[in-house]
């Protein structure tokens, strides 16, 4: 087999191609899109914008990857984002000194604590009570926004707080703080899962929970942990999102982000059936989705065709990744390849 053929078989080949095509199309439309310039000591330009905008989805998808690897799913992430924003902004708004760093830090700590409880709750339903993850997290997906509304009293809470605003719009070392935060957690999770045994134990539980338990793996604890992590990452995503608009909008914060996150995980090659997961894959998936959303505006797709365009790109990428299509494409080049077909034993 040639090197090229091997390359096209890599599960991230087509998502990366899609990423480049989108970047290319945007650059052809606006020649300055790909340029990165320095303004006021910060980096500016299309690629930087993509990084900044990816940060929220990356955080959510990061948790989602771990949950999906254990055969689970977490639909409540969007609602958790809304709750995180509501809790934190309400506390900042109620404080006498919204601009102080202490106020912001304390408010964020409260947000994290609330989300920790949510994660523990989700994990309890799945790991201890054995409720199917899609149902267990559906509870908070629907109820969570109601809780957020209660916290904000049905209003859209707005605040003015420079330190909080910096989360989403600030720069550090020339880079957007939001992207740095997401990148930091991405790196931490990558290191922790691959340098400790957490990654392989998560995979083991995802592939065969019963066998893992009998092997002495604390399957319940691991499942519980991933739901807690997922809620915490959603919480931080909620900070970034509310900081972006400096408002807690319980109805719209993180709306449908669970679907984008699941999509990013799947594009990245992690199977919804659990087991082997790829954080790099998720990162690529997130970049594809964000670039897609951004390039739609840059290329100038008419507003009413945006959803259709997005759907088309996603369908094409998923099709190219599908084993059946891959096999058909390969069969045209190489005849009589053996295909082990999965049969339920």
């Amino acid at each position: 087999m040639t090197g090229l053929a091997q390359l096209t078989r890599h599960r991230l080949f087509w998502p990366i191609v899609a990423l480049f095509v989108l970047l290319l199309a945007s650059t052809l439309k606006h020649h300055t899109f790909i340029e990165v310039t320095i303004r006021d000591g910060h980096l500016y330009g299309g690629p930087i914008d993509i990084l900044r905008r990816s940060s929220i989805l990356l955080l959510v998808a990061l948790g989602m990857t771990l949950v999906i690897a254990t055969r689970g799913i977490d639909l409540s992430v969007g609602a958790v984002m809304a709750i995180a924003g509501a809790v934190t902004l309400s506390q900042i708004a109620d404080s006498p000194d919204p601009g102080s760093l202490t106020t912001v830090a304390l408010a964020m700590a409260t947000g994290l604590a609330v989300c920790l409880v949510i994660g523990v709750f989700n994990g309890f339903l799945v790991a201890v009570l054995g409720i199917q993850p899609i149902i267990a997290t559906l509870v908070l997906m629907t109820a969570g926004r109601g809780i957020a509304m209660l916290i904000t009293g049905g209003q859209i809470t707005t605040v003015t707080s420079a330190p909080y605003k910096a989360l989403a719009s600030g720069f550090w070392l020339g880079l957007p703080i939001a992207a740095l935060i997401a990148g930091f957690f991405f790196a931490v999770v990558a290191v922790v899962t691959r340098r400790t045994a957490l990654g392989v134990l998560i995979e083991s539980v995802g592939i065969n929970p019963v066998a893992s338990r009998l092997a002495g793996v604390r399957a319940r604890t691991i499942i519980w942990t991933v739901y807690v992590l997922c809620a915490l990452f959603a919480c931080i995503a909620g900070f970034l999102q509310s900081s972006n608009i400096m408002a807690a909008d319980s109805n719209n914060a993180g709306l449908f982000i669970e679907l984008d996150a699941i999509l990013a995980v799947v594009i990245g090659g992690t199977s919804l059936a659990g087991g082997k997961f790829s954080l790099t894959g998720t990162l690529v998936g997130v970049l594809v989705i964000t670039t897609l959303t951004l390039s739609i505006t840059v290329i100038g797709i008419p507003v009413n065709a945006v959803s259709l365009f997005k759907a088309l790109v996603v369908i094409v990428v998923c099709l190219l990744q599908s084993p059946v299509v891959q096999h058909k494409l390969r069969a045209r080049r190489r005849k009589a390849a053996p295909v082990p077909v999965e049969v339920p034993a």
Partner: protein
Amino acid sequence: MTEQSTTPIVEMTGISITFPGVKALDGVDFRLLPGEVHALMGENGAGKSTLIKALTGVYGIDSGRIVVGGVEQVFSGPAAAQAAGVSTVYQEVNLTDNLSVAENVMLGHEIRRFGVIDWHATRKAARGYLQALNLDIDPRSSLSSHSLAVQQLVAISRAMVVDARVLILDEPTSSLDADEVARLFDVVRTLRDRGVAILFVSHFLDQIYAISDRLTVLRNGTLVGEYRTEELSRVELVGKMIGRELEVLSELETSSERAVVDWTGTPYLQAIGVGRKGSIEPFDLDIFPGEIVGLAGLLGSGRTELARLLYGADHADSGETRVAGEPVRLRNPRAGLSRSIVFSSESRKTEGIIGDLTVRENIVLGLQAERGWLRRVPSRKADEVVDRYIKALGVRPANPDAIAGNLSGGNQQKVLLARWLATAPKLLILDEPTRGIDVGAKAEIQKLVAELASQGMSVVFISAELDEVLRLSHRIAVLRDRRKVAELVNSQDVTTDVVVDLIASGGTSA
């Protein structure tokens, strides 16, 4: 059977299949005649399953020809093979548990009237197919309400609905008791007399000789030969399968010299009135260091349930367990593991191997679980352990990066053993470690168990084969109807008949 005059219904020539890193089949020829029972023999990893999967369209072939009923076939999948008249009944029954018997038998072939399913007629037809196999069960009953043996017969009925000319039975008897096997064989003979070609795979030599007309032997992915069963003695057959002198087997016969166990000290594990409602009645059991305790009893007698309590896979709701004299509560597998107790389940696939992980990851898993996720097993230590056990147990292929799910049953069993031995256990509980694996591997595992015990490890050994239990154990606990009914010290006088009597009488004569 008039062999010469019949043309084969299946003729496979020069079949080769390669998997990444493994040549699974290398130019194998195989033929199957109508109206015969043909046994496919070979050790684990000899290529039996691969050959069957080629014939049933599960795997595509790299080279060779498959002719079924005179027509050359290129199977695109299992459905194509079925359409050509090749049906398979797998070891693990391949039916839908939560549907009714009739729905299972007739699935995809329901009788329709005016475009909708006529359930009355469908059930009637199903009953007809079942009765043809002397199976008198209510077609409306749910499949899961029947024993595995009946489910297997239902699977065969289903094969008859699709008018199979070739019926493949892959280890159909591995979980059946003697009566059920006899019943299955009656059905097999009926089908044979009707002209169906039956391919039979089993590790029980007695059964091969009882049912098969001819047999084909494979070894390491190549064809050894095709023989008439009556013309080949058992010793010759085993010799052809393992391809080396029968030293292993003879060693096995003489290994009855067991190391002496000191029964005066403190038992490593002591169960006092330990039980669990609905699973096993309270029992007492002592297991001394260096002792092999065999559990004998029929399927469903509570052997597995007892073992699970000793490990902590299930937690006991009565009694007390002591490890090395100290009372302990074994509430989960971790608790067992931390007391150096390990348990290898009888269901390799569902409760043992993590299919998508590598051999290496599977072996290290036990060690890793013991250390917790934070303290990863250093890769040098992992390499060393994996290497040592792959060599010591003869795991094939000897490739730590092979995906464990792709290994044959016997090799998966060795990987599981490796996982547990790597944790240096003091009590090793083996539930049917030799089920569904070939004589060679079986002998190796038995030898290993005896060796480990002589080095001071305590072993609980569960097997449906009494011979095996008698050959290895120092003491035997007999179970019946989820109750421990007797316990006896093994000696020359203890024969399978003695144990069978105990099982039959429920221990009253002991």
